[in-house]
Each structure stands twice: as C-alpha cells, then as structure tokens.
C-alpha cells in the first residue's frame, strides 16, 4: 500500500503539490491525470525516493518511501534503455535485478515481448528501434520485473496509436493478474480511463486534487471487463468526457 499523508511535494524552492493526501491499495491501479507541468511526475519521484516530501509522510507498506529497499518497476520518461544491450537483454537485466531482492516471479521474455507488440524484435539493438518501439521496450522491461510496485511515467504517450490499445489491454491484465500496485502518470484520457481503477484529476501547479474518478464504481461496464470492445462503449466515452470536461 502506498500512502501520502498531508504532504507538500516538490523541491525546496518550488512546491508542486500542496496538502496532498491519498492512499493506493495493494493491487490498485491509479492514474494521476492533469496538465503538463502540474507536478504529476513529482508524485512518482517521491515514491521512488528521488525526492522526499517537503511536509508530511510518503510510505510504501508502512516504510518511508525513501527508505524502501525493494525494487520498483519504473518507466522513466526518457526510457533509459542501455544501448549496448539488445531489447531482450535490456528486459532480462531488470528481471534478474528484481529477483535479487526477493522477487519470485519469472515471466517468459517472449510473452513479455508479445505483450508489448515486439514479437521477433528481441535481438534488435536499441539504436535500431523507432521511438515507439523503444517506449514499448521500456514498458516490457518494467513488466518483466516481479516488483509489487510499478510507476509508469507517460508510459504510453510515445506508443504508436495502432498498438496502444493492444498494449493497454495486455498491460492491464498483467498488472491485475499479478496484483501489482501501479501509479500511472498521464495526460491521455483514454489511457487514464482504460488502465485505472481510480483517476486523480490534478489542477495546474501548484496542484491540488480536483476530483477523483472511481472508474469501477461509476462506470459499470468498466468494472466487469477491460477488453477491446470497451473502447466503443458509452460508459468509456462518458468517462473520457468527464476527464476532458
């Protein structure tokens, strides 16, 4: 469980989020949705321990987030793929690392590649990939870890439109099947609605939570299934509109 209690988040000279509190249950997928520069990524930086709250506490499973020693699967905005390794080795490296600290799940790399629509591209070097393929590799690297906490920072933004829905379906199934607590940062309403159990809508900086959209509670179809036909459903469109509005 991830918990922010009465926190101010940001940098010593700049507060990005004020009086921010929220609890993310184990296995829950939440999205922080808001305009660029409102401080969405600051939330993830506090979970990863890169930043500490300026005020209040941020905890993961009861430990201060900055002292949490288990690996957290993470897709940074700039991918950070190692160019001297191929796609498969980039993914395997993170999997091996997560197993070193008590991870117990070994996912088949070929299945991961299939999930992120990179079948047959495991041997490609990073400089041979398009921007979208590199992004999907970074996603696959995250999925291959057995971390119980995952942070996806604008993970699907650069993914090509024709693959995006397929990747979202695979990703959501994977996260739910493995009970992974996931924090998504996005300004894409379709991604936010489809992927999440709850969406926190943030105001422009200094951000506060404007609204919390409980997707499972408020939109019945989305509670029962998240498959390709959901995208065309009235519930899905209504949920997206409520985010845009």
């Amino acid at each position, binding site marked *: 469980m991830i918990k922010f209690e009465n926190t101010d988040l940001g940098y010593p000279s700049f507060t990005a989020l004020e009086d921010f509190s929220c609890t993310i249950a184990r296995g829950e997928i939440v999205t922080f949705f808001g305009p660029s520069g409102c401080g969405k990524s600051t939330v993830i*930086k506090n979970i990863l321990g890169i930043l500490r709250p300026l005020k209040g506490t941020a905890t993961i499973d009861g430990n201060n987030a900055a002292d949490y020693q288990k690996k957290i699967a993470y897709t940074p905005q700039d991918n950070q793929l190692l160019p001297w390794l191929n796609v498969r080795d980039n993914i395997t490296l*993170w999997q091996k690392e997560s197993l070193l600290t008590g991870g117990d799940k070994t996912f088949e790399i070929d299945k991961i590649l299939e999930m992120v629509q990179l079948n047959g591209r495991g041997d490609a070097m990073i400089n041979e990939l398009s921007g979208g393929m590199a992004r999907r590799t970074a996603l696959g690297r995250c999925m291959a870890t057995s971390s119980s906490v995952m942070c996806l920072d604008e993970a699907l933004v650069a993914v090509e439109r024709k693959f995006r829905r397929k990747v979202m379906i695979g990703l959501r199934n994977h996260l739910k099947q493995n009970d992974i607590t996931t924090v998504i940062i996005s300004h894409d309403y379709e991604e936010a609605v489809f992927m999440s159990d709850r969406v926190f809508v943030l105001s422009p900086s200094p951000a506060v939570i404007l609204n919390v959209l409980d997707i499972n509670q408020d939109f019945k179809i989305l509670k029962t299934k998240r498959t390709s036909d959901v995208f065309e459903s009235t519930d899905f469109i209504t949920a997206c509109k409520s985010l845009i509005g």
Partner: protein
Amino acid sequence: MQFKNKISPAYISIGLVFLLWFVMTTIVGVKPMFLPSIGATFSRLFESLFLAEFWKDVFSSWWRVLLAFVISFLVAYPLTIYSVINERFREGLFVVVEFFRYLPVPVFIPLTILWFGIGDMSKIVIVFLGTFAQMIPMFYNSSQLMNNKFDAFASALKWDTSKYVRKIVIPGSLPNIVDDSRICFGWAWTYLIIAELLGAENGIGYAIVRAQRYLATDKIFAFIIVIGLIGIFMDRLFIFFKKRLFKWSI
C-alpha cells in the same frame, strides 16, 4: 559535378600539400638543403625501407610509445573510475593532475636523462608524464556523461554508486574512452619524438638528429613522412576497433 563528388576530400588535401611542396622546390626554387624535392625525399624513403637501421629506429620508437601509452592508460583509467565513485578522491587527484597538465613535458627531459640515462626508461617516463595527466580529465569527462544519465537504475533498482559505475558508467563510456585514447596516442607519439630528439641511442627522433648532422634534409623529410604515416595508421586502427567493438555507439 559528378566528377567532383567522386574525389575524396582526403586526396584533395594531400594533393594540395604536394602541390605546395612542388611549387616551393621547382618554381620558387628553395635550395634542397632547406627543402628537398618530392622525388629526392621519396627515393630516400624507399632506400631506407631496405636498411636494417631504419627498421630498428622505427621499432624502437614504436615499442617505447606503445609501452608508455599502455602504462599511462593502466594508471589513468582506474584512477578515473575511482574518482567517479569517490568525490573526495577526485578532488585530491585533480589538483595534482591539473598541475601536471599545464606543465610542458619537454622541461622534464633533462631530468629524466639525468635520472634514467638516454635509454628506453627516460622516454617512457616522458610519454607517461605527457599523457596520463591528459587522459584523466578526458576519461573523467567521458565517464561523467554516463553518470546520472540512467538514474532509473539507481532509483528503481536501488543500485549503489559502485554497482552503477560497474554496470553503466564503464560499458557506456568505453566508445568515448577509445576516442580519448586515440587523441592521447597522438600526444604520446609527439612527446616521444621530442624526447628522442633531445637524447637517445636510437629511434625516429634520434634518426632525424643524425640526418641533421650530415645536412641530409631529404632523410629528415623521409622520417617526418614516416611519423605522419604511423599516426594515420594508428588513428585508423583505433577507429576500426571502435567500429568493430562498439557498433551500438555508431
């Protein structure tokens, strides 16, 4: 236009140098004692190829520069890597390195001859002094390019600095380290020739001094060409290995 595109710029540069040389010797009429003709120089170079003394000089210089360069690298690279890991060590090391970096290495030649004589050791020490202080800041800059570039590994995988350096900084910076080494090898070669000019028993630098005694300017020029050719060869060798070993960086 098509004709122009087919000529490599390298050939044009070489052609211009030879043209200038030709003009100076044939049209301007500079005396051979000061500037030998292209023909005389290359015929002297060709003759030299069949002399054991020539090859002895070339290999003596080659051996010295290679050995000194390897020693310099083996000292400089580990120190650089440790200074990436340890900030306090870096501060201490760089004071000494900066001091040496601004010293003109030839000032040490009288001392090295005094300490080690005119044999191999004095040349190796000169090349070492000339290159290791240049290598460290260059290697450090190349390594620093990798530092913080992959901060997800530190934050998400909880890697400590030493693991980050082993797994990211070293493999990631190697192509740039090869480039840095290529540049440093050029300096190593220069320092060696200077050291040999000022006191040696053999080597290309010493061969030039021998030729000067007999006013054999054509021989001096022949050796200058040899030095340049070795430089081009080494440069290409470094680039070849970089392309073969680090395809991902190209």
